[in-house]
């Protein structure tokens, strides 16, 4: 069941980062079953990640809450790659905040994209899973830095406006 976590990433990415997900086809289905086995399938994306009005699929009824209505969402995203403007169509089926199906058309066809599918001779690429921070014996955490009070308040305002 590890794909659930991975697909959840796709969902939140759609909410916050628009639609360049899954160009490598990894989110399309169980292509990247990892053997970690820490099946933390019941966690939901952080509110901060899901708080943004989502992409075109659900932009009109964004409630600002961290849960999504069940159903199938369709969206078209475009992005600028070094080779020019590229478009993808994404279809997501959501049930209980979990992506149960993803279709991405077309799949990645562009091996020259600078930031995508960079297969380094000296690099390692793999699907990662989240472990609870309090289980990994770290003294600090580094991630998305700097969320100032003013910024957070503004986001809250937008969320309440959108509700």
């Amino acid at each position, binding site marked *: 069941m590890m794909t659930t976590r991975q697909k959840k990433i796709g969902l939140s990415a759609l909410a916050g980062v628009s639609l360049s997900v899954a160009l490598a086809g990894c989110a399309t289905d169980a292509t990247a079953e990892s053997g*970690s086995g820490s099946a933390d399938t019941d966690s939901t994306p952080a509110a901060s990640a899901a708080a943004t009005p989502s992409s075109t699929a659900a932009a009109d009824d964004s409630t600002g809450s961290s849960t999504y209505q069940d159903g199938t969402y369709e969206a078209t995203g475009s992005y600028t790659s070094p080779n020019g403007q590229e478009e993808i169509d994404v279809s997501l089926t959501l049930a209980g905040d979990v992506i149960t199906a993803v279709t991405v058309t077309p799949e990645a066809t562009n091996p020259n994209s600078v930031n995508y599918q960079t297969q380094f001779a000296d*690099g390692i690429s793999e699907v990662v899973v989240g472990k609870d921070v309090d289980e990994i014996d770290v003294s600090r955490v580094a*991630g998305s830095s700097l969320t100032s009070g003013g910024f957070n308040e503004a986001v809250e305002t937008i969320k309440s406006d959108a509700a």
Partner: protein
Amino acid sequence: MLADPSAPVDPSADGALAPRPSRFDFEAIGTHWQIETPHSQPLGPATRAAVLERVEAFDRDYSRFRPDSLVTALARGAAEVDFPADAEPLFELYDRLHAATEGAVDPLVGARLEQLGYDAEYTLRASPAGEPSVPDARDRPTWPTTVTRTSASPRSGVSVSAPAGTVIDLGAAGKGYLVDLVASVLRDAGHTEYVVDGSGDLAHSGSTPVRVGLEHPLDPSKAIGVAEFAGLSLCASASNRRAWGGGLHHIVDPRTGSPAREVIATWVIASSTALADGLATALFFTGAHQLAKTFHFSYVRMYADGRAERSRDFPGELFA
């Protein structure tokens, strides 16, 4: 951001619990900071005051969000603004980042960020001019072509001139640079073992390694891996936390005017925090091989599809 402070501390060699380290917490440039030193070497009052003075001066000079800053003076049309001596190393780093990323990292992205709503009022709504469009490269101001710097000597300040309305945003490397400046204050006061943690952008000094969780960009209660290192700096960048509506967030490619896609989080370990910070942003736009031609660093980069990529020499592990 800190892990649970009640987590057990490392047992010392004889099996007894090591005394808790000394910590100094403060707020600066809109976020939480913490300096950790060994239990036996707390920061004295004078050092604490010097740290606070340092961060306040930096904020006063470089903040795009303050009406009294040098950056704001330039944006409001001052023909020439004199920056202090600490400006030149930061500006030189931007020179190198701009060249290595072919313009993806550019302080002049500031005007675009404001258009998109990431302004001093936190409008967080794109102005009409903020509709995504690809600006004509010939018309677009860039760091090397628009900003003129003159410096009497490497140790003196630097005079900056730019057309009215030029908004310099030092978000890519500024916080990391401030971590380095704070670390200098500590070293000047005789400290050799410390962690300066500016909300996840941190510098470490000493022989005892620090273990840092790599926060999952979509779930802050989780980590996708851990880094363990000594005597180096680690910076992270992620596009989710400071995201606002319509797919907009604060990591913008000035060449297209659009927020970065595909990459959702980066972590970089380098010898200086400013460099690690700048590269963490650069990796949203530029391949690591390209950057490695200019800079020495190790990194982890996570994509929207859940994959993460790391350099072989990254000192730590990813959870797969």
